[in-house]
C-alpha cells in the first residue's frame, strides 16, 4: 500500500532533472536502496520506535555514512549536491532514519574539517562505516534559538576538561557512540564556546528519558547530561573559542540535508496523492477530474520544483564556499521545509479520511517532516539570518 511505482507519476520534472550521469546513477542506487531497505519498514520503525542500526550500516557500506567527507579518511568524497540528491532519495523510504543519517554525516564532516590529523584518523573510518554512531549536541533546556548563550561548562583541569551541564533534544542520544558537544570554555557569548568529542560510557555522561515524539520515531531523542564528566583535552575539536563557528558551519550543511529530506517526503506524497486522485471516485468521476484538485496538484508540484532548485543551488554554493552560501542555505531550509510541509499536508487532505489512517504513508511523512521547520535552526532564525545579511550588507 505504501509502495510507489517509478511510473506512477509521469512528471517530466522529476527529481533527476538537471543531474549528470553519475548523479543519476547515485540517485538510482539511493532510491532503490530506500525502496527495498527502508520503505517496507518505515511504518513499523515509527510504531515500534526502532533505531535501525543494522540497516543504516548497510547504507554506510554503500558509502552513505560520510558522503561529503574526503576519501582520504574513509569518506565517500562527494559534493554537497550529491549528498542532497542522496538524502532526498533515501527520505522517500524513511524520513526519520534518513534525517538521523544526515546528522551523523554532519558530525563526521565537522571532525574532518576541524579535527587534528590524529582525531580524523581515529574517528572518521568508524563513523564512515557507521560502526560507530554520532550525535550533535548544541541545544540546551535554556538555549535553543539563542544557541550562543549555552551554559554547559568545560573547566580545564590539567590534561582534562570537566564538563557540567545538560543538552536537550539530542537525536540518537543514549544509543550513539560519539557525542559532538558544544561547551563553554571561556567568556559568555559565541567566542567562549568550544567543541569537544565525548565517547559514550565516559563516567559522568548520562541520558534523560527517551522522549515521546510526534514523528522522527525511528531515532531516539534524549537529554544528554554531564556531571563532572572528565574528557581529555585532546578530544577538543579545533581551538578553544572556535566551537560556535564549528557548530554553525556544520549546520549550514545540515540545513541543506534536512531540507533535502523534506523534498523526498514531498515528492513521495505528491505521487501518492496524484495516484489516489486517479483512483478514487466521487460524484461519478475520479477526483483527478475536478479542477480544484488539478490546480492544487499544479501548485504543489510547482512549489516542490522551486524548493528543489533552491536547495540544490544552496548545496552548490556551499560546496564552492561562495559568499552567499550561508544565506542560501538558510533560505533553502526555510523555503523547502515550509513548502514541503504544505505539500504533504495537502497530499494528506487529498486522501480524505484515508489520509488520517496510519495504514497510509502520507501521515507519517507529515509527522516526520513537521520538525524540519523547527530543528537545525528554526525557520524564524532562518529569517533572522537572511534579513541580517540583507540589512548589514
Amino acid at each position, binding site marked *: 500500500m505504501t509502495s510507489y*511505482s*517509478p*511510473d506512477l507519476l*509521469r512528471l*517530466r520534472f522529476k527529481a533527476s532533472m538537471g543531474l549528470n*550521469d*553519475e548523479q*543519476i*546513477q*547515485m540517485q538510482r*542506487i539511493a532510491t*532503490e*536502496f530506500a525502496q527495498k531497505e527502508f520503505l517496507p519498514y518505515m511504518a513499523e520503525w515509527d510504531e515500534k520506535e526502532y533505531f535501525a542500526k543494522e540497516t543504516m550500516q548497510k547504507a554506510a*557500506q*554503500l*558509502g*552513505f555514512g560520510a*558522503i561529503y567527507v574526503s*576519501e582520504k579518511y574513509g569518506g*565517500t*568524497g*562527494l559534493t554537497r549536491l550529491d549528498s542532497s540528491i*542522496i538524502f532526498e532519495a533515501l527520505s522517500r523510504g524513511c524520513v526519520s532514519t534518513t534525517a538521523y543519517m544526515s546528522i551523523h554525516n554532519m558530525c563526521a564532516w565537522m571532525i574532518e574539517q576541524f579535527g587534528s590529523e590524529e582525531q580524523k584518523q581515529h574517528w572518521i573510518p568508524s563513523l564512515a562505516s557507521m560502526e560507530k554512531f554520532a550525535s550533535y549536541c548544541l541545544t540546551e533546556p535554556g538555549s535553543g534559538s539563542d544557541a550562543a548563550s549555552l551554559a554547559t561548562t568545560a573547566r580545564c583541569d590539567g590534561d582534562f576538561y570537566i564538563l557540567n551541564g545538560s543538552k536537550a533534544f539530542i537525536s540518537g542520544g543514549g544509543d550513539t557512540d560519539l557525542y559532538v558537544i558544544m561547551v563553554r570554555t571561556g567568556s559568555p557569548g559565541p567566542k567562549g564556546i568550544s567543541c569537544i568529542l565525548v565517547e559514550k560510557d565516559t563516567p559522568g555522561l548520562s541520558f534523560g528519558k527517551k522522549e515521546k515524539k510526534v514523528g522522527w520515531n525511528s531515532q531516539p531523542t534524549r537529554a544528554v547530561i554531564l556531571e563532572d564528566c572528565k574528557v581529555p583535552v585532546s578530544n577538543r575539536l579545533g581551538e578553544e573559542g572556535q566551537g560556535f563557528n564549528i557548530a554553525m558551519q556544520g549546520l549550514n550543511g545540515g540545513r541543506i540535508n534536512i531540507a533535502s529530506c523534506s523534498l523526498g517526503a514531498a515528492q513521495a506524497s505528491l505521487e501518492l496523492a496524484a495516484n489516489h486522485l486517479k483512483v478514487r471516485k466521487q460524484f461519478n468521476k475520479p477526483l483527478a477530474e475536478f479542477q480544484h484538485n488539478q490546480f492544487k496538484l499544479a501548485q504543489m508540484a510547482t512549489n516542490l520544483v522551486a524548493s528543489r532548485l533552491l536547495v540544490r543551488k544552496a548545496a552548490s554554493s556551499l560546496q564552492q564556499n561562495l559568499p552567499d552560501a550561508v544565506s542560501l542555505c538558510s533560505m533553502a531550509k526555510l523555503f523547502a521545509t515550509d513548502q514541503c510541509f504544505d505539500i504533504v499536508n495537502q497530499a494528506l487532505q487529498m486522501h480524505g479520511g484515508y489520509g488520517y489512517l496510519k495504514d497510509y504513508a502520507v501521515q507519517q511523512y507529515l509527522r516526520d517532516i513537521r520538525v524540519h521547520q523547527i530543528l537545525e535552526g528554526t525557520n524564524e532564525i532562518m529569517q533572522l539570518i537572511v534579513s541580517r545579511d540583507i540589512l548589514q550588507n
Partner: protein
Amino acid sequence: MAMRVLVGCKRVIDYAVKIRVKPDKTGVVTEGVKHSLNPFDEIAVEEAVRLKEKKLASEVIAVSCGPPPCQETLRTALAMGVDRGIHVEIGGKDYETLQPIHVSKILAKLAQEEKVDLIILGKQAIDDDANQTAQMTAAVLDWPQGVFASKIEKMDGTLKIQREVDGGVEYVEAKLPAVISSDLRLNEPRYATLPNIMKAKKKQIAKKSISDLGVDITPRVEVLTVEDPPVREAGAKVESVEELLTKLKDLGRI
C-alpha cells in the same frame, strides 16, 4: 587458470513500469520511460563479479547492444565490479528488429576476439522473454551450455552447473569454454556502492559497430502488430455441475 568472462547486459524497460502499447500498434512506448539493466543480466553480472572475487575469473567484460543509452546500462555493470564494457552501437530500425539470432552472433564474435572462457547471460530478457540468446550463442560457438543455472562450481577444467528444470534440479558438467544462462536463484545482486560508481567512471567502455564485427543483422522476423491483451470479460455464476457442463458445451470448450 583464471577464466576470462563475458556477460551480456541488455537495456530493457524497468520491471516496475506500466507498459503502454503505442497508438499505431507497432510496439510499446519506450520514449521517456524508465529503463534498467535486465534483472537476469544483473544476476549474471553479479555471478561474474563473484567469480572474480574468488579469483576464479581474471577479467570480466560486459557487453550491451543498442543505442547510446546502453552505456548507462554498462555503467551499472561497471559499478557492480565489471572491469570494462563494450558497447555495440545499433540504432533506429536495426535496433527495433534485432533478435536473439543476431545478438548471439555478435556475442560469439566478441567472445572469440576477447578470447573468453565463459559467457554468462541472463536466461531471458523481461521485454521479449525470448530465452534464446544463451542457447544460440553456444550453438554458434559450438560450446557446451548450462542454462537456467542456479549454482555454478568451478571444477578442474570444467564447470558443474546446477540447473532448475521443470522436474526439479539437474546437474550438468560442462567443459570450458562454455555458455551459462542465469536463473533467478543463482544469486542476489549487490547494490553498486557510491565509491564504485566513482571508480567506474575511470573504467573503459569500448565502442564497436556492426560492421567492425562483420555480423549480419538483417531482420528475419517482422512484427505485424502489437496489441493489448483482450480486456477481461465478466464471468457467470452457475448453480450446479450440470449447468457448468452445459455452459462449457455451449461455448464449445468441451
